[in-house]
């Protein structure tokens, strides 16, 4: 049991980290009332920038490269998400439409530039990805240490910490109160003197930053290179985590961890003799079936922020 945990937990953490980060971005954006179907595209951008930056500057930054790469990915993700922000906040675009366009645009740009810059459809593998480490001190805690603090990506911890930060920011600070107010009842926020558009811009840019981070973390911990198939569906899984987690940062984190656990179990189970007779396909679809069962069984109805998806046009009802 102990050993099983020791082997499963780290895999859950590395698998879930990019989903957590991206889902947090989704939570910020949707809490402010801007639907973000574009999470997939933001991840693509993050993965692309993370890899390209890493390949290009590895000689300059040495072992710091992955860290600076994710910063670059966050910056570009933020800028990229501005497109979604401008379209859906300032131009009153249908937010779903804009998000879908973000997804196509990101993949288009990423692969186009890869081909133009590298002359081929995929980049080389990076020399300086993230590696797992043991967390000093904590790793020696009996029982818990080996399970949670040995052989873990620091980025996984960053993801978890950021989830708590997001919870604090959204539920404990004036900024969070205002952001949520804007997503529930923008006109009420407006009459209280809150700048609705500005809050939404900030939220969408945060989602770009976190989506970019999520994509870059995926690329630099798991894929090691960029191609059209590096990010395939993770953004949609992150979106599912946002909804599964009922638009709550910790809920979204829980949902992402649940996805990771389900995936990890489906891999682990196929090695367990007792389960060996189960058809492979059952194990493959188990993570998705479990999610449906969980939602149908006990998670149930989730209420989106009331003004989610509705452009705020001053002076209209």
């Amino acid at each position, binding site marked *: 049991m102990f050993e099983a945990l020791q082997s499963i937990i780290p895999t859950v953490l590395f698998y879930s980290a990019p989903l957590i980060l991206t889902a947090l971005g989704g939570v910020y954006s949707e809490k402010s009332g801007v639907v973000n179907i574009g999470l997939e595209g933001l991840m693509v951008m993050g993965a692309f920038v993370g890899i390209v930056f890493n390949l290009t500057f590895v000689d300059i930054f040495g072992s710091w490269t992955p860290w600076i790469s994710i910063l670059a990915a966050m910056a570009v993700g933020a800028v990229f998400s501005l497109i979604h922000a401008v379209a859906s906040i300032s131009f009153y675009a249908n937010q779903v439409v804009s998000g879908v*366009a973000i997804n196509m645009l990101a993949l288009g740009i990423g692969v186009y530039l890869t081909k133009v810059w590298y002359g081929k459809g995929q980049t080389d593998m990076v020399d300086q990805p993230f590696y797992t480490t043991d967390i000093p001190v904590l790793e020696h805690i009996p029982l818990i240490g080996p399970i949670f603090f040995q052989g873990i990506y620091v980025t996984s911890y960053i993801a978890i910490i950021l989830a708590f930060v997001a919870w604090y920011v959204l539920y404990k600070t004036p900024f969070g109160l205002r952001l949520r107010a804007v997503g529930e009842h923008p006109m009420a926020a407006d009459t209280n003197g809150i700048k609705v558009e500005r809050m939404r811009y900030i939220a969408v840019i945060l989602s770009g930053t976190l989506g970019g981070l999520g994509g870059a973390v995926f690329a630099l911990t798991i894929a090691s290179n960029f191609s059209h198939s590096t990010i395939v569906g993770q953004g949609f899984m992150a979106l599912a985590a946002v*909804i599964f987690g009922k638009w709550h940062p910790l809920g979204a984190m829980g949902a992402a961890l649940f996805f990771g656990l389900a995936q990890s179990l489906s891999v682990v189970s196929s090695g367990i003799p007792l389960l060996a007779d189960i058809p492979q396909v059952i194990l493959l*679809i188990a993570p*998705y079936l479990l999610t449906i069962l969980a939602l149908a069984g006990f998670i*149930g109805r989730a209420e989106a922020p009331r003004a989610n998806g509705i452009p705020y046009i001053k002076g209209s009802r």
Partner: protein
Amino acid sequence: MTSNNKLFGLLVPIISVIIGLLAGAVIMLLSGHNPIKGYAALWAGAFGDSYTIGETIRRTTPLILTGLAVAFAFKTGLFNIGAEGQVIVGWLAAVWVGLAIDAPMIIHLPLAILAGAMAGGLWGFLPGLLKAKLGVHEVIITIMMNYIALHVTNAVIRSVLTDQATTTEAIASTASLASPWLQSITFYSRIHYGILIALFAAFVMWFIIERTTYGYELKSVGFNQHASNYAGMNVSKNIILSMVIGGAFAGLAGAMEGLGTYGTISVMSGFTNLGFDGIAVALLGANNALGVVLAGLLFGVLKEGAGEMPTAAGVPTELVDIIIALIIFFVASSYIIRWVLLRFKKGER
């Protein structure tokens, strides 16, 4: 006022397409390619001769259907990200019937098409049911159903339709939509009769939504569930119905691939993307039937034409994805285009 609105309704997409293409030209220039050559290649790739025209039509066919699938659900206020999975199971079911049954064409072909539609409908039924009865968000369920469709279909191909092979036999010719005659006049393109089915489906969607009591209810539920309930409509039934019909359209798209383009189904290592493209087609087509047909055609033309760009102009095909994305942005931001147009008109006076 209304004629003005109609004019804008036409102008906005046209302007969007033009700006999108201009932006594409700028990108080509910036990355060191010749935009004229690039677009010439795009044109040749889509309309160069009868072959490419045939292929363009073939490519358009399933896009119209998945566009309808997404648009139909949107009309009832539902977001069907599951068209992808519905395409896959529709494809599987159609080919399955195409392989397993021995019957004259007049029975076999409709049966196979129907099987595709029903399978897609079934795949839409579950998310609809969960949404209607338990309030579970259809977006997550449909995303999950996509993966389930993919893996289950692969398993069926491997263990039921074949003996551990990756591709099935070709379907019986009695279940095929392919037309030697159409192919012969298009230099052996894979054009098939499916386009007629797609256009018919668009007509059906228009008719249901705009002319029947079903459409009246579906839209009403999409706009306001409380009022619909008050008016005596069965909200749950309409939600389920909408997902089922949407799923059936997507299932038909799969059937077009299975019975028309390929005549087989193969183990897939990833999604077909037809369903995801359908979202963009639906949105670009403003969720109405005619719009979807035109948007599907635009997609088909750009995607088919893109194939010629790397060979003829050295431009990566992804340029087209960028252009399509930009067009979608501009259409979505029609508010600003309208605003500029109004400014322009005022300036004239």
